[in-house]
């Protein structure tokens, strides 16, 4: 789905990404994880073209990301961020359908798609005509997800989508989100700093540190075959969570 070749992102004070080579497989959920400042959010923003690489190239479905083609390519991606990024002046419905209306979809087609998504995301019909300020954090993220999925994109990019929610709602949404991913069989790239969440969602985990990719693989591989001492320590440090997770699952 995505291929990154020798990608660097340099800022005046520091390098945010250093020579990243990465392939993101289709139909799977890939988790970008690492300590704060490791470059995982930068990488995600690079994938949707919000920032340009200083060097190297980003390939999406065999096509290089470049300014002229970006607008059309973004319509094949869905993007969800931590605080939802909903437009405060539009209702939930208007937020979700903005792009479809812009592209000139018929009213029926828009409505059908919206109700399909509301069902998928368990968003109540009564909330559709509310403004974001009158929705809870969890509901806002459901709207954000509906908005991202509206055009049925090829890939869903999510930057800590559950990071701002309180633990109860977060756990509930994690379950729902995983079900949605399974139903849709979509390629998903998700940024998190929480290994338990990574384990819960991820087929493939990309562990980053200081702008570079240390290791890409399943949790099992990262645990048993750490590429270096940092990977080992990072996994072990959060092991207690993993243990807890194991006890929970049958």
């Amino acid at each position: 789905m995505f291929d990154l070749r020798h990608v660097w992102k340099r800022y005046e004070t520091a390098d945010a990404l250093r020579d990243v080579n990465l392939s993101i497989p289709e139909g799977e959920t890939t988790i970008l994880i690492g300590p704060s400042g490791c470059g995982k959010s930068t990488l995600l923003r690079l994938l949707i073209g919000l920032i340009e690489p200083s060097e190297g190239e980003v390939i999406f479905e065999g096509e290089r990301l470049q300014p002229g083609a970006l607008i059309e390519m973004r319509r094949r991606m869905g993007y969800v961020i931590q605080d939802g990024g909903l437009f405060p002046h539009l209702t939930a419905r208007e937020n979700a359908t903005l792009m479809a209306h812009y592209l000139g979809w018929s009213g029926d087609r828009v409505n059908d798609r919206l109700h399909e998504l509301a069902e998928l995301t368990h968003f109540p019909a009564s909330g559709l005509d509310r403004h974001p300020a009158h929705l809870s954090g969890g509901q806002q993220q459901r709207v954000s997800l509906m908005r991202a999925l509206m055009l049925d994109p090829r890939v869903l990019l999510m930057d800590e989508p559950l990071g701002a929610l309180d633990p109860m709602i977060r756990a509930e949404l994690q379950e729902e989100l995983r079900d949605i991913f399974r139903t849709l069989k979509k390629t998903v790239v998700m940024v998190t700093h929480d290994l338990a969440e990574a384990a819960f969602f991820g087929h493939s985990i990309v562990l980053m540190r200081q702008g570079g990719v240390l290791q890409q693989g399943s949790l099992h591989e990262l645990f048993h075959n750490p590429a270096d001492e940092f990977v080992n320590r990072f996994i072990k440090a959060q092991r207690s969570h993993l243990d807890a997770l194991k006890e929970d699952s049958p």
Partner: protein
Amino acid sequence: MRRAVTLLFALFLLAGLLTAASAQTIHVGSKNFTESVILGDIASQLIRDAGFQVDHRKGFGTRFLWNGLEQGDIDLYPEYTGTLTHEILSQQKIQTDDELRAALRERGLRMTKPLGFNNTYALAMRERRASELGVKTISDLRAHPDLAFGFSNEFMDRADGWPALKQRYNLPQTNVNGLEHDLAYRGLEGGSIDLADVYATDAEIEYYHLHVLEDDLGHFPEYKAVFLYREELRQSAPAVVERLDRLAGAISDDAMRSMNAQAKIEQIPDGQVASEFIRREFNLDTQTAQRTLWERFVYNTMRHLYLVGVSMAGAILIAIPLGVAAAKSRGFGQAILGVVSVIQTIPSLAIFVFMIPLLGIGAKPAIAALFFYSLLPIVRNTYAGLCGIPVSIRESAEAMGLPAFARLRLIELPLAFRSILAGVKTSVVINIGTATLGALIGAGGYGQPILTGIRLDNMGLIMEGAVPAAIMALAAQGLFELIERWLIPHALRS
């Protein structure tokens, strides 16, 4: 949102257009003192009696009127020969009336024969004191070296003032002091001074029973009143010139002084003083029905709305795109904000004056000045409104695949709307207040009664302009709050 901007724009433009006057008229000008306004009124009424539409604009400084006449915004105005030779055309060292006529003709201008009176500097004493001492002429003063003189500061300093006068007449007096012109009259009345400088047709001469001493050696330059008019009137409106010519020699010093006194001291309206003179002198009935307070209010309100409406429509149309450009490009943005801020630091009166060479006098330069003055709050608030949108929201719009212009239209401008509206509101309130200054350059509006009120020291007239201007500003503010309540969703009104 778009509805709102369109609506606002249309509202201003409509207010402007509805109130624009369109008829072809003779433009009469007059200066910012009573005598000039009365002369302007006399000319206006005579010309109107000949069947023309007349627009009489009052309250200009000399320079504005002269420039207005040269540029054709004004067709005619009353002037003084001394002002022409000693101020306006002083570099040409004009000696005689014929030379003056030739100099005017080079500029496409004409002047009438003198109207009769000579509003020069003069020396005045109380009548009783003068007859006691037997003083009739300035030369007679030589016999009374102990008299106390009180002169205006201007007269003390002028080349043709006291120093030259003293030398010319060989005057022996040493008790000579400078003081305020208005205080001089009280000084004469109270007896603290015996003699003061006056203008020959001052209203106060009659009121304080003063005797004007004859300038028997002809020291003071002549300030003979004439009408200046544009040469093309001779072809396009000969009847106008014919009417002006009728005034040659028709107004004596005494007649003018008495008219000044009626207007300034008895507070009779200028127009009525003028029509009474015309009835006496020409046996013509030009008594125009005095406008009622309500008619004046409606007229001034329309003129004021015209100035505010057109200038605000233009400002909104230009300032919002400028604010958007400023927010989108950092370097360009700083330049725009810098330039617009500098414009704002220029005193509003100066902007009005700067516009005159470009646009003449009247409503046009006033609208241009108000336009420039209204830009900054809108540009700055548009800029601030756009820059205040959280990055996460801007990027969400971008990540959806919306093109830049659609993002601006659907997301960014609606989110900045509240701020933009606040900018427009600030602009309009400033604009309504500043527009009162437009009267200084002949634009009319609420400034007109304020100016006349200041000239005649009439608080009622000042209030006639000041109170509605304040109410209009408050009404505009209220209107914007209604628009805000109507158009901005609850969710955005934190």
